[in-house]
């Protein structure tokens, strides 16, 4: 390959970002812009019996006040559970829910006016513990009226194959455990921010910090009754998402509504506390799981029962419920397999999608149980895993189509690099090594909103200036998809990256992409971009072959030149462009990606289907202080099979980021509540590991070259997080002999477990 594909490539927007020039949503200013402030609920669950906004409406500087009945149409990211209103209608379901919104000339006036709003609540019994939500309650106590059997269960997802429960009943070698996981949040740097502009031609432009302009576009249209063709959603530079900006949000819809109502630009930017309130992070989870093996350590069955605490609304919850179960089908071969997930509604901040969506917590459980199994069978934990890996090109029990699979190479790499065989089980008391593996989807094969279109379309435009402009709906949320588009165009056309520019994530200008979630962009957008730019090359070759009387196939695009092997024809890129555009002018080529038809025909078969899966193996080393219970993760060896690293710099960054994020959930991060109110809604008390807490990292990229991925690539953004947490948990066992079944693994839990053990 002659271009930058496969070479460490700094992101095209890196300099802009570090020099402060990049424009984030909050950086956009408009003349006559209004500012929004929200009046939020101080009750967890209550009927709104009186709401008086009159004083706020007449407050100096206020232009509009919105309440629930102004925008009563419900919405949600999943068309199957549109259970949320932009502003609470009749009742509130969590502390912090928006009850009214004020648009004013200044942010100060908006805030002061909010203080003039008066409300009377009629409290209803609040549910904070998901187990309480499983019980029948009085009809008026139901958080949502649509839930069945008088309970507050949002979704029950259950699949079973080949009666795992029967196998587990008779199994000689069985390990079971009850695990508990606190909720964690994305903690992206940039708070949510939205600017809505009502244009003179009665169209709406929304500039918003979103991972998914398309869903926002659809939901604004639905709730505000504005035709789809009169809405434009643009994603500016984004300061991180991790799944936390992938829902359409109330504040976005409210801001758009206020722009429409006032016919003026309206801006809303959250405080950090509001970001925490908005949440949509990883579900608090309780699960029991059992795994059985034969005497050789071959896994015979796995069954698990999972309760996830969804908070007040649905978000991605139906998908999360399935992912908790179905993503246990790899990287090990398990023929007798079953799960049930119940997602409950509670009166807390709503949970949703977060890096590693749905699969992170059950992955911890299964990897700890396998470690316990290895222990009981007197087998090395790496050897036990090695015996059970799925092969390449196979189907899992739930009919996931596994294509490329580099998990063996991943495990081999970290095992060797960490000197596992000489050190595991042999380190002094207090120090230990732990291993874990994982796998993840490379894009969901099925779209959330069912449609007959491809999952992504990319246009590549060539014009007189010799520049290639890539038009794609893909949202660069910091993961580098803009750079990916440039790299691919440069690669296919044999030009340097400076010839390529991007127009992305603008629903008026760019062809639709379904968004940056489920680790789909590299695989899907990458393939579409490759097709589009290949077509540009073919068009150019066709024109040159005609003019120069040479076979198109013999033309080589390389180093900004177009030439034959013998250089009898040797054109500069500009000369080639001129020939290609002669008589027709600028042209655009289009590429798209549609996932092949995958999966079985049973109910729930669609969950977790992906055209390819990434794999990984991680080993962590820890230092546990037996006096204080403090855990220090000193080193992590991570190996991830991303098919082909199109940009190794970026893949390494994703793996390092996953280690840091996984470390946070493992040892310090936690959404903590007091009577339904979060008590650590700031970066001071929500304890993200600092640079000093971050271990040394040794990253290995394994390239299994997937046959369907662009240049062989698969995902690297989410898969690497799964093995991080259990590798830490297992290392603590090796260090001090205790099994940590509850996250985060804070010092007091370690100490009390050590006492129990003593």
């Amino acid at each position, binding site marked *: 390959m002659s271009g930058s594909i496969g070479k460490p490539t700094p992101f095209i927007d890196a300099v802009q970002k570090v020099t402060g020039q990049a424009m984030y949503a909050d950086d956009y200013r408009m003349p006559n812009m209004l500012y929004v402030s929200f009046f*939020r609920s*101080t009750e967890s669950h209550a009927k709104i019996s009186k709401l008086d906004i009159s004083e706020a409406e007449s407050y100096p500087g206020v232009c509009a006040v919105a309440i629930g009945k102004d925008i009563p149409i419900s919405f949600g990211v999943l068309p199957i559970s549109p259970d949320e209103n932009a502003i609470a209608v009749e009742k509130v379901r969590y*502390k*912090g829910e928006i009850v009214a919104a004020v648009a004013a000339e200044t942010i100060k006036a908006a805030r002061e006016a909010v203080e003039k709003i008066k409300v009377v609540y009629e409290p209803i019994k609040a549910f904070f513990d998901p187990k309480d939500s499983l019980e029948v309650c009085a009809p008026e106590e139901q958080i949502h009226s649509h839930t069945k059997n008088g309970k507050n269960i949002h979704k029950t997802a259950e699949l079973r194959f080949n009666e795992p429960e029967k196998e587990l009943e008779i199994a000689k070698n069985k390990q079971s455990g009850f695990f508990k996981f606190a909720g964690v949040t994305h903690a992206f740097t940039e708070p949510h921010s939205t600017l809505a502009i009502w244009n003179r031609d009665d169209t709406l432009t929304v500039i918003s910090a979103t991972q998914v302009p398309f869903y926002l576009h659809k939901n604004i249209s639905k709730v505000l009754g504005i035709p789809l063709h009169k809405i434009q959603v643009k994603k500016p530079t984004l300061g991180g998402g991790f799944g936390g900006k992938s829902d359409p949000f109330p504040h976005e819809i409210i801001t758009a509504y206020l722009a429409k109502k006032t016919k003026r630009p309206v801006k809303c930017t959250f*405080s950090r*506390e509001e970001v925490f309130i908005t949440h949509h992070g990883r579900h608090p989870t309780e699960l029991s799981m059992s795994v059985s093996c034969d005497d050789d350590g071959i896994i015979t069955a796995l069954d698990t029962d999972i309760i996830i605490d969804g908070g007040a609304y649905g978000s991605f919850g139906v998908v999360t419920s399935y992912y908790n179960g179905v993503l246990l089908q790899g990287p090990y071969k398990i023929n007798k397999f079953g799960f049930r997930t119940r997602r409950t509604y509670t009166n807390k901040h709503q949970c949703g999608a977060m890096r590693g969506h749905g699969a992170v917590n059950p992955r911890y459980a299964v990897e700890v149980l396998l470690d316990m199994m290895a222990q009981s069978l007197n087998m090395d934990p790496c050897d036990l895993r090695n015996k059970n890996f799925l092969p390449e090109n196979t189907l899992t029990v739930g009919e996931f189509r596994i294509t490329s699979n580099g998990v063996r190479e991943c495990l081999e790499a970290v095992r060797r690099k960490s000197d596992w065989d000489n050190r595991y089980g042999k380190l002094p008391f207090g120090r230990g090594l732990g291993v874990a593996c994982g796998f993840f989807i490379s894009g969901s094969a099925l779209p959330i909103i069912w449609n007959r279109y491809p999952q992504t379309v990319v246009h590549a435009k060539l014009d007189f200036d010799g520049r290639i402009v890539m038009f794609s709906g893909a949202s660069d949320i910091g993961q580098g998809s803009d750079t990916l588009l440039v790299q691919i165009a440069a690669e296919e056309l044999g030009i340097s990256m400076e010839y390529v520019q991007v127009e992305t994530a603008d629903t008026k200008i760019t062809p639709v992409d379904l968004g940056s979630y489920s680790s789909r962009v590299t695989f899907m957008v990458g393939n579409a971009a490759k097709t589009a730019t290949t077509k540009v090359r073919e068009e150019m070759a066709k024109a040159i072959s005609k003019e120069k009387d040479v076979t198109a196939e013999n033309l080589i695009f390389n180093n900004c030149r177009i030439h034959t092997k013998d250089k009898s024809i040797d054109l500069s890129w500009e000369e080639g462009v001129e020939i290609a555009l002669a008589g027709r002018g600028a042209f655009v080529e289009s590429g798209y990606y549609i996932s092949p038809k995958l999966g079985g025909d049973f109910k729930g078969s669609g969950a977790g289907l992906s055209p390819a899966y990434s794999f990984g193996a991680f080993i962590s080393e820890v230092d546990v202080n037996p*006096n*204080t*219970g403090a855990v220090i993760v000193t080193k992590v060896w991570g190996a991830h099979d991303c098919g082909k690293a199109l940009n190794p710099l970026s893949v390494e960054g994703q793996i390092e980021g996953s280690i840091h994020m996984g470390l946070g959930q493992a040892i*310090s991060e936690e959404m*903590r509540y*007091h*009577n339904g*109110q979060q*008590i*650590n*809604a700031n970066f*001071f*008390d929500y*304890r993200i*590991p*600092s640079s*000093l*807490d971050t271990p040394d990292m040794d990253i290995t990229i394994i390239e299994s070259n997937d046959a369907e991925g662009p240049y062989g690539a698969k995902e690297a953004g989410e898969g690497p997080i799964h093995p991080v947490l259990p590798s830490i948990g297992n290392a603590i066992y090796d260090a001090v002999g205790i099994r940590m079944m509850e996250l985060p693994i*804070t*010092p*007091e839990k370690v*100490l009390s477990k050590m006492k129990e053990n003593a």
Partner: protein
Amino acid sequence: MDYYHTPSTVDEALTIAGKLSGNYTFFAGGTDIQNYRKQQLDTNEYVIDLSEIEELDSITIVDGALHLGAMTTLDKIVSSDEIQNHYPIIAEAAKTVATPVLRKTATIGGNLLVTNRCTFYNQSQEWRDGVGSCLRDVGDICQVTGGKNDCYSRNVSDTATALIVLGAEITLMTPNGIIQKSLKDIYLPCGIKFHDLEERCILTQISVPIEPKKWWYKKLRLRKTLDFTSLTVAATIDTAGIARVCLNGVSMSPILIEKPLKELTLEGLISIARKNCKTVDNDLMPLKYRREMINVYLKEWWKSFR
């Protein structure tokens, strides 16, 4: 910014304060108090920023005693050779405050007078409205204990812990003249009025008379940086064999235990410490664990010189 004053002398600062009839806040760095303003816990209209008073920025050793200007940044203290060589416990304590970036602005005086903390108090206005206010705010009940009389907010000054075991003296300037007293005497065992200071006074200097024979310092927190303390223990043994042990972060004020080493037993020390620390569940680290760590830390100190 007519609300923001930057006097260049202590006298000027006191004069400005005199004109503002209590409606002002001194900034001695301001890294922490800014949060109080943002959360509407400090609603004073005016700010008097002391950072331009050069006379308060100094580190000197005279006749074997250390004198620190109150506006000396923690960063300067951490990197001062004199302090590292002669009073390493002060450098060590300063290094455990906040983060390297914050320490470039935060000062020793600011840290000594850092405001007491509580999980239920250090929150935004909206948050406090949601939970119901507390004794220290505008409410009539303690959200931690349910009591109606006492507030148990925690003193979290790390440098105070170290300076108290060094027997530090402080100088305060008031419109009526200079006051000198022992550092430990400015701390009151009350979660609401936790500093015994005159209405209009400025901490100008900290003086440390003794160079201890042996010292020990440790801070409990979840992360290796940034976090306020969940328990800080500092201890010295001077040449006369007097042991001074100070615990902070676990009570309304620093708890000093001062005794000849000969008269101390570990059990006795733990028992006094546990009795004197009014520790309640007002930190994110669990109460039981923090109490347990008092024992663990004291034991660790005890072992360190045995």
